[in-house]
């Protein structure tokens, strides 16, 4: 057993040094869902006139996995990612505007590979892959929006590239205003075609390339409730088909690591409700969001997020925020398996395990004018913690791979 795991670790390290990307993670981290409708809605009414340029840099660092949770001698440094985002938007004609988004990330670190029982009988242990060095991902998307008096319609497309991953996305969405723009109905459809070509395909005896297709749609309604209050409810549906497993992960079945094997179809639904209220006397605005999620893999999740936008001295804004997340496990998930499953689905990925997460954030923003242009500069910090004990329902065995991270980000916006 120890020999087998050593061999796997060596193989992983070899792949790592050859630059085997934790492609799935990176792809998921800054996913090509950027171009799916309803996402990255620069539907900021304020920017509909002039040109805007934004840049943001973020450094995301995962906490080291505690030694009590990892197999002896295992890699403990997890992911560090440097993210760069650029956004440009401007009017092409009086009724047509264009939005361009480009992202570039560099990442390195080790990821969870599979979970083994603890020889001393305690909580299960995580086997980590070897550390990877400097994988890169580039993505870009373009969106064209036609503006009408009573609504708008947009077409978008994007591409995402990594050494083992390629994805194309496209979407169509629109908005219609009613009741003197007090009510807005919006909807959209999107698709994504992904291809993964995992390096070292022969190591897990599969095709050298795997495909996945996604179609999604959303329907949203927003309503102005008063001079300082708006609410919104959005229903979203997504269907995934194809290779949905993680080719870089294993699950231990009767002591033998087998490839991560998830169903080849997935239906997901989410309902997002958002609330915004401005307190004129306090010079502050409250944001409160709640999202309910359910899918046919057995997972249901709740997300609560609140943020307080406090304006100080005209040009400074301080924004503390808090987020709570809880999810249940996928039907076929287990840290490891004592016997085979009838449906042959196996996954020990912490992302399908039951857990909760808490994160708090603080952001500061200032606006100023230079050369008669409007600038906004911001800096933010976030800390995220996850664990079985944060979940809304008790979790008896938490996945040892659950991760925490902190992130520092800084951005600059220019409007002219």
């Amino acid at each position, binding site marked *: 057993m120890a020999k087998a795991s050593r061999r796997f670790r060596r193989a992983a390290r070899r792949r790592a040094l050859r630059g085997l990307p934790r492609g799935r993670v990176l792809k998921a981290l800054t996913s090509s869902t950027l171009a799916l409708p309803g996402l990255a809605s620069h539907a900021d009414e304020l920017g509909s006139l002039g040109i805007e340029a934004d840049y943001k840099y973020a450094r995301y660092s995962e906490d080291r996995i505690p030694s009590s949770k990892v197999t002896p001698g295992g890699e403990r440094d997890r992911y560090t990612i440097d993210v760069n985002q650029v956004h440009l938007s401007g009017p092409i004609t009086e009724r047509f505007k264009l939005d361009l988004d480009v992202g570039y990330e560099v990442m390195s670190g080790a990821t969870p590979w599979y979970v083994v029982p603890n020889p001393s009988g305690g909580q299960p242990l995580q086997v980590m892959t070897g550390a990877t060095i400097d994988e890169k991902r580039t993505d870009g998307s373009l969106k064209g929006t036609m503006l009408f*008096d009573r609504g708008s319609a947009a077409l978008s497309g994007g591409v995402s590239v990594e050494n083992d991953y390629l994805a194309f996305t496209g979407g169509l969405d629109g908005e219609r205003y009613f009741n003197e723009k007090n009510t807005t109905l919006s909807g959209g459809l999107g698709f994504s075609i992904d291809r993964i070509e995992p390096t070292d395909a022969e190591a897990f005896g599969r095709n050298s390339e795997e495909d996945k297709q996604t179609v999604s749609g959303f329907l949203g309604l927003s309503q102005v409730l008063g001079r300082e209050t708006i609410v919104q409810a959005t229903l979203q549906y997504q269907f995934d088909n194809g290779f949905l497993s993680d080719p870089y992960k294993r699950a231990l079945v009767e002591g033998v690591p087998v490839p991560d094997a998830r169903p080849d179809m997935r239906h997901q639904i989410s309902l997002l409700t958002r609330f915004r209220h401005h307190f004129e006397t306090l010079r502050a605005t409250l944001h409160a969001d709640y999202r309910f999620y359910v899918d046919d893999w057995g997972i249901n999740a709740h997300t609560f997020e609140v943020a307080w936008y406090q304006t100080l001295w005209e040009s400074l804004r301080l924004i503390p925020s808090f987020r709570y997340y809880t999810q249940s496990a996928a039907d076929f998930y287990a840290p490891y398996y004592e016997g085979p499953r009838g449906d042959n689905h196996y996954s020990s990925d912490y992302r399908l395990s039951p857990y909760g997460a808490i994160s708090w954030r603080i952001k500061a923003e200032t606006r100023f004018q230079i050369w008669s242009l409007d600038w906004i500069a911001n800096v933010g910090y976030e800390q995220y913690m996850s664990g079985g004990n944060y979940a809304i329902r008790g979790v008896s065995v938490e996945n040892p791979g659950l991760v925490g991270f902190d992130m520092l980000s800084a951005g600059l916006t220019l409007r002219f």
Partner: protein
Amino acid sequence: MTKLHPTHSRRARGVEVLALLCALALASTAFALSTGDRAPAVKGPRLDGKGELSLEAQRGKVVYLDFWASWCKPCAVSLPALDAFRKEFGEKDFAVLAVNVDQDPAKARTFLSLRPVGYPSLNDPKGLLPVQFGVETMPTSFLIDRHGVIRQVHRGFRKEDIPELRAAIQELIRNGR
């Protein structure tokens, strides 16, 4: 004696009240003045506090009545454009009557201090004038001829609108005697 209806929860009562208010609100429909209508009287204090402005005082001139606010992005383009019209057509034949509808007039004054224009604005924080004129979007302007009749209603503002507006003003100045 048994109750015929179960006691309503506070929530259900709240929804009932809301539905009733909405039904009442339905009675107030949005109406808008249009071409051919006589412009109603416009009178109010100046934003800078230096007296009063009125439509009556501009009788005999072509008047561009403009509803604007500091939070209205297209107004950053329209205000300088109107100032250019004012300089081009002269005080004798043309006047800009700007009505500011900021709930907080201080924000309007700050806006003007950064983008000064040569014409004053009327201060209407309660939004009484937009109701009378039936303003449907921001900004909205009414081109009024020398006899006080509305000749054009302009909704929204884009740079591309400027030549067409200039032509309309010129025509009204020429033919309005």
